[in-house]
């Protein structure tokens, strides 16, 4: 009998551990190396049905986050690179857009047209979509709570981003030639483009 209860206890504890782990990969928080006072949180939502409502709430300022079309993202690293640049320009007051979140979307885009960047990389008007939400300095988790209450979708692990990404669309938008594609991983090709966009 004693052994059985121990076994059950162990099973219970290990499943509890598993839950903790999976909760952690649902929301990934990291600080920017160059701006250690800035914490970045990324959460992935699948099957979001109220895209238009979410967009309205972003435009009227209710939601203070970058809500990104997950299909257009290769890797979380790419998002961090966009956030880093946005925070950098924000601190210098040299952003091209009005908010740091708008700047994140603009940085993700290959072009210099802000509206086009929002349209391609922001939350879509679609009936169903996957979105990546980026929050800044949400240390207590309050912003995430608020956003979760508004977004009608399921939180899934950040790792799923790789399955969601639409490589063909990304290659087409960035006009990546076959030669350039062979230089390295897709996320590196895109990141390098992002980083050198304003070099002329």
């Amino acid at each position, binding site marked *: 009998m004693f052994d059985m209860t121990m076994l059950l206890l162990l099973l219970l504890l290990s499943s509890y551990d598993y839950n903790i782990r999976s909760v952690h990969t649902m929301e990934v928080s990291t600080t920017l*190396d160059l701006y250690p006072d800035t914490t970045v949180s990324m959460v992935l939502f699948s099957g979001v049905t109220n895209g238009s409502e979410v967009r309205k709430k972003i435009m009227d300022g209710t939601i203070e986050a970058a809500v990104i079309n997950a299909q257009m993202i290769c890797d979380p690293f790419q998002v961090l690179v966009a956030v880093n640049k946005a925070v950098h320009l924000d601190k210098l007051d040299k952003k091209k857009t009005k908010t740091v979140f708008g700047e994140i979307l603009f940085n993700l885009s290959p072009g210099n047209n802000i509206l086009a960047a929002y349209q391609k990389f922001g939350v879509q008007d679609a009936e169903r979509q996957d979105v990546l939400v980026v929050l800044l300095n949400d240390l207590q988790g309050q912003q995430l709570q608020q956003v979760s209450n508004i977004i009608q979708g399921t939180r899934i692990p950040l790792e799923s981003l790789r399955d969601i990404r639409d490589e063909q669309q990304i290659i087409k938008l960035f006009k990546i030639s076959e030669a350039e594609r062979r*230089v390295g991983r897709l996320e590196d090709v895109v990141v390098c483009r992002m980083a050198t966009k304003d070099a002329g």
Partner: protein
Amino acid sequence: MAAKMEDSTRGSGDSSVSSSNMTEIPTVAQIIERQAASSESSAAGGETGPPGSLHHPGFALFKQGAEARLYRGTFLGRPTVLKERFSKKYRHPRLDEKLTTKRTQGEARTVARARKAGIPTPCIYFVNYQSNCIYMEDLRCATTSRDYIVAVQSVGAGDSFRALQPIMDKIGKILATMHDGDIIHGDLTTSNIMLKQDASATDPEVVLIDFGLSSVSQLAEDKGVDLYVLEKAFLSTHPNTETLFRVILKSYTKHSRKSKDVIKKLDEVRLRGRKRTMVG
């Protein structure tokens, strides 16, 4: 004996063999491993670093050049090299600022252009135009072609040519692609031509670095000078390598669509002296 030589020249990704046998030609993977092992043991105080790295927390200085300092560290979870261009105090401050920014911008622009043409370069992660810092990928599993050529030649085996030929072939091909894209590297040396070989790769890959002096030009003259610079650097760093360099040129001619004029110009430049463009 013959079997051993075949193994050495294949250049496979077998890095599990640490060659203490000094008559055996090392593979690229072995040299990379050797360098990684020796840098690990001497990396102890890497984090604190000398005074120059104080304003880059988390980065340690590892090279100082005439124009820039190089630091190693981590950026957003990735191993990163930070290239910081510093101001030259002897210049007029306004001019200095403009020049330094222009060089940083130019380097970023050329790297983008090179990649579009299919030239492997380190991936740039972030450019800070205020401090003229470029944060880029730290090439793991890589060594300079300089170090590899030196290592192969130091073994003194008779078939070093056979070991190095495929790599010279690849270098020629990359340079051809680069010049066909009208990109002039500007500082071609064997230290700026890296050889990368991951554990999974069967062959080493050529990666170009340091586009600080690069430019864009369609002129065969400029491309010829670019090759001439490499030839001088090659022959002075690695004695008795004329035949090796010829492999580069042969491969270049084979892979370039505009090589005839370039090689012609190279011959002309050789005859008349160093880096003269004879314009104006």
